[in-house]
């Protein structure tokens, strides 16, 4: 049973002033838990080490996919293969940030990788800002938190220019390149997550601007243009697979823009390799029985409880828990039933006294840099709650 620390919640007016407007779910309950998960320093350290090790393994697995042309196996849309290869070849396509979803890590249970949200991770605002503000409000300032996400992002934005661990040469090497930040119109969580990233990039020293995707012009020759100005750097909180499937012309244009070196796009196209749950199977092939991994395959696993999930599903859509005879015990509906499926060995999530399950999210920006939790049913969906933490 995990340990929770009760706090006084942040009031919604304050959250609104921060731009954190998605504080209340559609059923009128608060999205932010008023409790914090209490962890030890050793547990925080273990999350940190695990995410760093997993990232190295993801690099190896992606290299394996590129070398052996396994794009199709892991469900990558054909019209992104070129841009993925192109982005994989050069360091300028720097991975800005991602979030590992992990089971375990509490109460002596082993940490196990569930998946890696490498392309368009949210929960950034909650992890970097909100859980920190909760501590402040509750006079817990002197406590530590595994949360340097904000400053890690400042540094990693600088690395887009220095391409090195050392960020001290940023000012000298930054040549005024303009950075455009983009989301799709109509979703305030996405828009304000992007605006937070823009804020951090501005602090790092970039010249920045925000635009909705449908107001931006794209061309092979002029690159990415907004209000008659070209942008050399572009961050989009729009999944690559949505670009591939819903706007295939845009996929083609972005491929050409990258090949013609007109702009650099974040997160890079190769992060879709990490994002594909098909990579879980590749990881198991390369690192069988690795302590951080759960067995994964493209067909049902023999004789064990398992989770079936679509390669590019989100928010638990079409995820099912199967018993050892592959009968469905529990499932969530969604739009991904036609997707290729991955079968991953089941692992128990930590639970509280109400039986709610807790999953850790460890952010990675050059190295592991922040921790937050989500709680919900056995399959975490879009109604799951964010839970901050406290290191004691």
């Amino acid at each position, binding site marked *: 049973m995990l340990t929770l620390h009760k706090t006084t919640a942040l009031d919604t007016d304050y959250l609104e002033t921060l731009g954190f407007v*998605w504080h209340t*779910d559609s059923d009128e309950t608060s999205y932010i838990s008023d409790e914090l998960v209490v962890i030890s320093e050793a547990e*925080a350290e273990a999350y940190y080490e695990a995410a760093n090790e997993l990232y190295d393994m993801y690099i190896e697995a992606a290299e394996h996919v590129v070398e052996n042309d396994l794009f199709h196996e892991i469900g990558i849309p054909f*019209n992104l293969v070129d841009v993925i290869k192109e982005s994989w070849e050069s360091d300028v396509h720097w991975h800005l940030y991602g979030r590992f979803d992990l089971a375990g890590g509490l109460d002596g249970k082993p940490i196990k990788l569930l998946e890696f949200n490498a392309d368009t991770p949210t929960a950034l605002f909650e992890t970097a800002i909100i859980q920190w503000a909760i501590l402040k409000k509750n006079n817990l300032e002197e406590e*530590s938190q595994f*949360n340097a996400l904000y400053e890690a992002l400042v540094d990693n934005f600088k690395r887009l220019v220095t391409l090195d661990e050392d960020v001290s040469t940023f000012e000298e090497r930054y040549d005024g390149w303009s950075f455009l930040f983009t989301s799709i119109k109509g979703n305030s969580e996405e828009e304000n997550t992007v605006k937070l990233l823009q804020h951090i990039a501005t602090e790092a020293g970039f010249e920045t*601007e925000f635009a909705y995707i*449908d107001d931006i012009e*794209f061309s092979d020759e002029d690159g990415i243009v907004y209000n008659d100005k070209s942008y050399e750097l572009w961050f989009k909180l729009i999944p690559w697979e949505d670009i591939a499937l819903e706007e295939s012309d845009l996929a083609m244009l972005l491929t050409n823009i990258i090949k013609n070196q007109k702009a650099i796009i974040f997160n890079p196209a190769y992060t879709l390799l990490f994002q594909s749950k098909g990579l879980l199977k590749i990881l198991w092939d390369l690192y069988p029985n690795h302590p951080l991994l759960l067995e994964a395959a493209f067909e049902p696993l023999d004789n064990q409880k398992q989770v079936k999930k679509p390669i590019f599903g989100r928010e638990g859509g079409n995820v099912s828990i199967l018993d050892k005879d592959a009968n469905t015990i529990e499932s969530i509906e969604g739009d991904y039933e*036609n997707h290729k499926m991955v079968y991953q060995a089941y692992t128990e999530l930590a639970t509280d006294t109400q039986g709610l399950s807790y999953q850790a999210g460890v952010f990675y920006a050059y190295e592991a840099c922040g921790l937050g939790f989500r709680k919900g049913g056995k399959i975490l969906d879009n109604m799951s709650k964010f839970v901050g933490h406290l290191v004691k």
Partner: protein
Amino acid sequence: MKYLNKLSTMATATGLGALLATGVTGCTSNDQQQQEQAQAKGAFIIIEESAPGKYKIKDEFPADETRIVLKKLDGTEKVLTKPELDALIKEEAAKIDDGTSNLTKENPQVSQGMGLGETIMASMAGAMLGAWIGNKLFGNQNYQNNRKAGYKSPSTYSKSQKSFNKPRKSSSSKRSGFFGSKKSSSGSRSSYGG
């Protein structure tokens, strides 16, 4: 461990304090302009009737607008009109839904060619024309395997793939309006985070 910080040092070291005072929405420009959705670029496709009622893709290359030429068994040629194309795609979408399309069957008998709607959907242009049913198809493993069957020869397929991936030098016109009609499904919460 580098990133286990005392909060007091963090607030002074970064602009987080300033952010908490002003929020992220206070300082950004609000310059939005609606733009008309530009016309999609397309493909020029030649489809050949290989047996009565069976078709294969003979050639395919990128073009500014989509045009599909049909060469029939009797040697006549015909350009498919937009309403004809729309009807074929709609019909094929219904077949995909009820599972009778060869595109989504596991090992369809397609050595003679596929139906006209199926052949069009197997082409690159099909992927663009039918973007609205794209999710049904691209998520489908059989579709990926069967697309190749729509081509007259394996080299037509790989040539088509190549020419679509080539940087296009000809056009300097800009395109915009992507995702312009996308509706946000669930209000203010994002579904991207996983």
